[in-house]
């Protein structure tokens, strides 16, 4: 149908087809027609809870929140196993393996809503606090790494760290220089692409010109800032093609493009520093429209009482 290959027909193609076949002017995207796997559309529901004799399947059924209390039960079980193991190791006069320690800095406990979704049960704030308390207790034990799987089930990675994990490997050109191109560098109305080549001499080319493409000092500083910050000035070459917008938008787009490309050439500590400095954050602000009855987006005429 529609000249598409059914073997490689993905959800994205389905969405596109639905948008084409059922054009909708409804403002809220959630109200528009869609075709998705039912498990994504309908929230999970609890399966049948009783057998033929009327006996509940779950041994904590009468608590009303069997899945949640089963989780607490399992956590208590884990703590007891860890205590037993610790006793055994102490009797052998050994110490915990310092290399095996759990790394939990890059993740947080799942939120109450996520926990509710995974348990298919509503839980109160107090119960969520109890859940966090008992999990923290497990983590604080010296041999908590032995039940890593159980802990990881209830943790999710921090958003900022997730980007850092997906750093692309640079490609190599015919001169043997590593290069990486960042497409879609956007800021205000400006868009373009930035190519970083390493090793280089610090040459910056913007639309075929050098840094003097920008007349004002502020824009030039914007372009140079990620290079200076990461101490890569004079070590890489930068080539940009940029169009649309004004000098501030263009320089901002280039700044983000350079910083994004430099991720492949700097070490982990510098990456974190760049993250903290806000170099890897996209600036999504756009020009706000002018409103009728006032001279600008926010500006009002001078107010006179009478």
């Amino acid at each position, binding site marked *: 149908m529609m000249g598409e290959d059914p073997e490689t027909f993905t959800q994205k193609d389905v969405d596109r087809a639905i948008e084409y076949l059922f054009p909708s002017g409804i403002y809220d995207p959630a109200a528009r027609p869609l075709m998705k796997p039912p498990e994504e559309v309908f929230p999970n529901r609890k399966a049948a*809870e*009783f057998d033929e*004799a*009327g*006996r*509940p399947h779950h*041994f*904590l*059924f*009468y*608590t*009303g929140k069997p899945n949640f*209390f089963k989780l607490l*039960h399992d956590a*208590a*079980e884990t703590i*007891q196993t860890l205590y037993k193991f610790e006793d055994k190791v102490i009797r052998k006069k050994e110490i915990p393996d310092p290399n095996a320690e759990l790394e939990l800095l890059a993740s947080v406990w799942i939120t109450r809503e996520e926990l509710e979704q995974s348990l298919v049960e509503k839980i109160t704030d107090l119960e969520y606090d109890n859940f966090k308390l008992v999990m923290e207790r497990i983590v604080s034990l010296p041999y908590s790494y032995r039940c890593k799987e159980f802990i990881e089930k209830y943790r999710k990675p921090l958003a900022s760290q997730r980007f850092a994990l997906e750093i692309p490997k640079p490609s190599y050109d015919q001169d043997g220089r590593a290069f990486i191109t960042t497409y879609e560098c956007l800021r205000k109305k400006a868009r373009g692409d930035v190519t970083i080549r390493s090793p280089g001499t610090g040459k910056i080319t913007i639309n075929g010109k050098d840094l003097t493409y920008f007349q004002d000092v502020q824009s030039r500083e914007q372009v140079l800032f990620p290079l200076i910050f990461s101490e890569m000035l004079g070590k890489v070459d930068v080539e940009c093609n940029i169009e649309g917008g004004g000098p501030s938008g263009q320089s901002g787009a280039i700044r983000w493009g350079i910083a994004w490309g430099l991720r492949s050439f700097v070490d982990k500590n510098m990456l974190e520093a760049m993250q903290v400095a806000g170099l890897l954050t996209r600036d999504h602000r756009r020009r706000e429209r002018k409103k009728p009855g006032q001279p600008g987006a926010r500006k009002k005429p001078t107010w006179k009482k009478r």
Partner: protein
Amino acid sequence: MLPRCLQRHVRNGFTLSRYYSNAPQPEPAQVTVDESVKTSPLDHPDFFQVHNLFTVKDLFDAGVHYGHKEGSLNEFMLPYIYGSRQGHLIFDLDITAEHLRKALNFAAHIAYRGGIICFFNRNALNAHLVEKTAQECGEYAHTRFWRGGIFTNANHQFGAVTRLPDLCIFMNTQNNILNQHTAVRDSAKMLIPTIGIVDSNCSPNLITYPVPGNDDTPRAIEMYCKLFKAAIKRGKDARMKFLQENN
């Protein structure tokens, strides 16, 4: 040679005798064990042989005889008290053993009939053990905060027609030192039989099968859990055997 506590069982024909109660006692029925009776569990005084699950010595070793301080005594517990030592009440383990055997026998019978058994305990120290026992028995547990109406308004609370437990076993009958567990009252309202470990500060009045004994010590709770698990297992095994023979 039977143990002393068992001799009394045989003498009384397995009727419960409250030592200091002046309530009229039913006439002890004559127990005649012949072949036809043996096949019907209800006609046998101890079909599941629960009397051999424990001895009074076991109870003593588990610290079941320790009560609370004299001042906290519930007067309905007086008949089960042996005496007081250094201000602490001591249970008469002979009476406890009798009551416990009755309770175990009843639990085994309920399990034999395919009933739902629910374990209760509001002491956080022992909660995990009780839950684990219930899971191992294939039965149910409730060791958390009791939302009102779980029994009395069950169909609404669970959003479906719900079968309630056929037996509630309370490992302690108090929420805290002051309040009785609401499930004791609710079970009585819904005519659900109850077995309860009642300490010297608890009221045995609403419990169908009160077992006087220590309800705080993990050692004692472990003992009760072990016993009830064994009794329920015997009941279930007998049920499996019965179902296999009749199919």
